């Protein structure tokens, strides 16, 4: 079971309706789409299953397996960009 932790070097805010992230070490900017923004807002100190549950609440008609796969994809992308860290319990 992996716990997600936002990188302390990341700052973020909703700017003109879009979630913008900046990795302050590299000064790189990223945007998240609305669904990604939900994941970002609930991911810190959480496990993937909990994040999926929160997303499922926002999209009750979405297929649970697909949601899980999509969230994993995003978390991996965030991890590759150094925006989150995954810690095994």
């Amino acid at each position, binding site marked *: 079971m992996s716990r997600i932790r936002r990188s302390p070097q990341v700052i*973020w*805010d909703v700017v*003109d309706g879009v979630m913008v992230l900046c990795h302050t070490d590299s000064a790189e900017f990223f945007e998240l*789409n609305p669904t990604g*923004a939900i994941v970002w807002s609930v991911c810190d100190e959480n496990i993937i299953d909990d994040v999926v549950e929160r997303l499922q609440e926002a*999209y009750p008609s979405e297929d649970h397996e697909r949601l899980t796969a999509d969230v994993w994809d*995003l978390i991996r*992308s965030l991890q590759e960009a150094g925006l989150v860290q995954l810690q095994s319990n």
Partner: protein
Amino acid sequence: MIVDLLDRLVVPSRLGLIYRGGETLGYNPGLNIWHRLDESCTEVLRWLRAGRDRDRLEGHLVERFGYTPEAARERLQEIVKWCILRRLLYLDREPSLPEFVHPVNPLATVYWICTQACNLRCTYCYQEATVTRPHELSTAEAKALIDQVVEAGAQTFVFTGGEPFTRRDLLEVASYSKSRGLRTNVITNGHYIRNKNVESIAEIFDLVTISLDHGLPEHHDRHRGAGSWERALNAIDLLLEAGVRVDVNSVLSRLGLQDVKELLRLGRTRRLGQHRIVPQFPMGRGACSRNDELTPTELLQLNDQLSDVKRDLEDNESCVTMEGAYGKKGLRRNHCGAGLSEVSIDPEGWVYPCKLLQYPQFRTQNIRDARLMDIFRNNPLLRSTQGKVVDTLHPCKTCIIKNDCGGGCRGIHVSFTQEYSQTHPLFCSYLRRAFEVRAWGSTGDVPAHRKAQFHDVSGFQPRIIPLSEVVSKS
């Protein structure tokens, strides 16, 4: 951690702090980005912009705003983070702006002044339309022109005039344009749009733009002729009923200022696409009726005034756009489009960079003698206008809003100066005010429709998007 960022902060070149009514707008002109600032944020940016000692900034906030040291540190952290994320401050270095690259084939729209004839004699007609010119393009030549437009790669063909509906073959030629896959539009006074032809018009045209200048018939008719207001409004309603997208163009004279509220109300009660408002400028017949123009003071107050009117009408989702509202937050614009994204062809086939630049010095070649594609690509005069961008135009290149206005409408500048490369200070001042009003109007609370749409299923898959430094637009 964030306080450590203080030493890494870089202030964007020519960062603007625009004051208005006790509040301040932060403007990064390189990226054409603006945000409303509170007092402490303004103070921090002013301090950094002035190059003052950053180690004393926290203490300055304590003195200036009466914060405790801890609160000042916390507030400074918030401000730094807020400004970085909004590109009002950079980290480590100012990113170099990507060069503007115009598309290989930028030509998007061809305006064809299909006739000089008009049933009206509007006092400010830029085309000075009266009667047909001797050698206007025949039906066959008009269709050949459309073939050339397709060949040149344009996507939109706009019939204008004069009054396009005075051409008996208008629907035939427009139908041909549509059949060649062009988005086909017409700009008309609406006089000839009736029950008997509205269905055909609805089938052929993607967009009909009606000229309606006033909210009160007596004012409109004084400039355009008896009965013209009623005919224009009738045409709008007929077209909307037939399901056509209708835009409205309004030329605003001094008389128009008196009934602008009624005009906007007319637009608001209908499902218009866009309602474009352009102040009267000294072009065409308008150069002979300059008493009707707004005074400089009226012109400079116009954007504020209309902003107030829209607020009075509670017109939050307004389709009204003002002359000068060319730019978009976060997009850079370096050219007005004359001779680049559009060209204009006169009734006899002569090609000009823009319909507002039909002066002898801007006449290029005739489509009867050369292919439009070749004229567009090779004519020295068009090539010259295509290369006149804000970074090279002498008066524009040092202007703080150049990346927003793209130099403004060259046709309007030329109407004052008669020189393509010159700008007119009054129009520039107007553009600056228009920018400020628009920028202020788009800050503050995020309007509901721009908030993140958490239930937009079409964009469901969560994604991360590396943000490019800036989006450019020619």
